[in-house]
């Protein structure tokens, strides 16, 4: 069977003048004129307020949404031309509620894509163990548990392990730490930041938390009402002179213990 990752690992994501509206009604445009190149290995953080179009961009990458105008290229090929199933098997996806299958054990959840890709049992089991260790969960303790027997932080760890199981070159994360308590969130952010550097994957990470963006990003793209208004490294970002950037940086300044 096909056990290779669905995408060769060197490719990037490219948005070419992408707009997306619902029902082709121009008045209900969600994102406009997005052009964006994401090179391999970058951790791109899409930052913006609720409703700014961040999640829409993520869903345009894995073909859950198709552009109304323009195109999104993955591995040089338009998402409209990809078989959506093959495309998505090569793109890990982590969301805020983790979306773990409640009727599966932790091990079965992590093994989801390897199972769908017909890996043999021994290889799958080894991979599950490796993934659980990678996200800091002892397989002996956690493999047989059900998601309801986990804390929120543990669930998100399993979500990350599941997304990485088939070694996809691209990882999409939609506010994965947004629902966690502040202490657990900080812990997972630190660990994930180290993990991301080690894995060398192309990561697109959605958040509305500037501090999280500064910690994780190699580049921050700021969205406002469906448009890109800034694109900069974390260092540059704080010095940008744009009203929406200032809105975010001033929210940071008001938070006690903000990074210097």
């Amino acid at each position, binding site marked *: 069977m096909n056990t290779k990752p669905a995408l060769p690992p060197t490719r990037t994501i490219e948005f070419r003048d992408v707009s997306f509206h619902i029902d082709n009604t121009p008045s209900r445009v969600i994102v406009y004129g997005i052009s964006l190149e994401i090179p391999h290995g970058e951790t791109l953080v899409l930052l913006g307020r609720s409703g700014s179009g961040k999640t829409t961009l993520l869903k345009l990458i894995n073909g859950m949404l198709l552009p109304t105008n323009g195109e999104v290229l993955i591995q040089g090929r338009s998402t409209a031309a990809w078989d959506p199933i*093959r495309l*998505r098997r090569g793109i890990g996806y982590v*969301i*805020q*509620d983790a*979306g773990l299958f*409640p009727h599966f054990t932790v091990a079965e959840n992590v093994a989801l*894509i390897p199972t769908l890709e017909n890996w043999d049992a021994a290889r799958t089991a080894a991979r599950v163990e490796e993934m659980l260790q990678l996200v800091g969960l002892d397989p002996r303790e956690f493999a047989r548990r*059900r998601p*309801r027997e986990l804390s929120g932080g543990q669930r998100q760890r399993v979500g990350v392990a599941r997304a990485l199981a088939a070694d996809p070159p691209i990882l999409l994360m939609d506010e994965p730490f947004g629902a966690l308590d502040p202490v657990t969130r900080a812990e997972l952010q630190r660990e994930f930041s180290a993990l991301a550097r080690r894995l060398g994957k192309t990561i697109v990470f959605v958040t509305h938390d500037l501090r999280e963006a500064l910690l994780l990003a190699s580049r921050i793209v700021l969205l406002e009402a469906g448009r890109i208004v800034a694109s900069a490294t974390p260092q540059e970002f704080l010095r940008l002179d744009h009203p929406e950037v200032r809105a975010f940086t001033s929210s940071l300044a008001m938070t006690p213990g903000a990074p210097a």
Partner: protein
Amino acid sequence: MSPQINTWSFFADHRAEILGATLDHLTLVVIAMTIAILIGVPLGMFIVQRPALRTIALGIASIFQTIPSLALFGFLIPIPFIGGIGKRTAIVALVLYALLPILRNTYVGLTGIDPAVLESAEAMGMTRAQILFRVRFPLALAVILAGIRTATIITIGVATIAAAIGAGGLGTFIFRGVALVSDALILAGAIPAALLALLADFLLGLLERRLKIS
């Protein structure tokens, strides 16, 4: 002689007949429920993605539920192939009654799943069929079973009326008892029917709790 002693002695004297009618009754219910499940569950799965068909299917199933059971048996008698006097007509009517709770619960169970679970299933590259059979269906099983439980209890009750069109079962005693103004005869049909319903409710309830995933 008090009516109570009369009833007990009647039960004792007609043990074999009552047991036979109970088995007849159970056979009727099992056949009707099997057919209703075989139609209702796949149909419920089918209408999940088809809103137009969903309205029609649930609408028709609801209409059957509103027809008084005695009238439904009566309506079916003149219809060729499925009608006439006897067990076959009774089974058709029982299936029509059992369909709504099964169909509705299948649909509700399959659609009432945490959107985050369905979103990640789709985003992970599961096909529509894989999502239906590996995610939606197992997660909906407890709700579907609750519908089957409701339908079983309805069917056990309605099946007593099937005796009116010659389908046999415990209703035979009840109709005879009404005609002869005999409490003993009525109870000989009613008590085993009630016990069957309670037993079915208990057993299916056990199964439902085992399948429930929180």
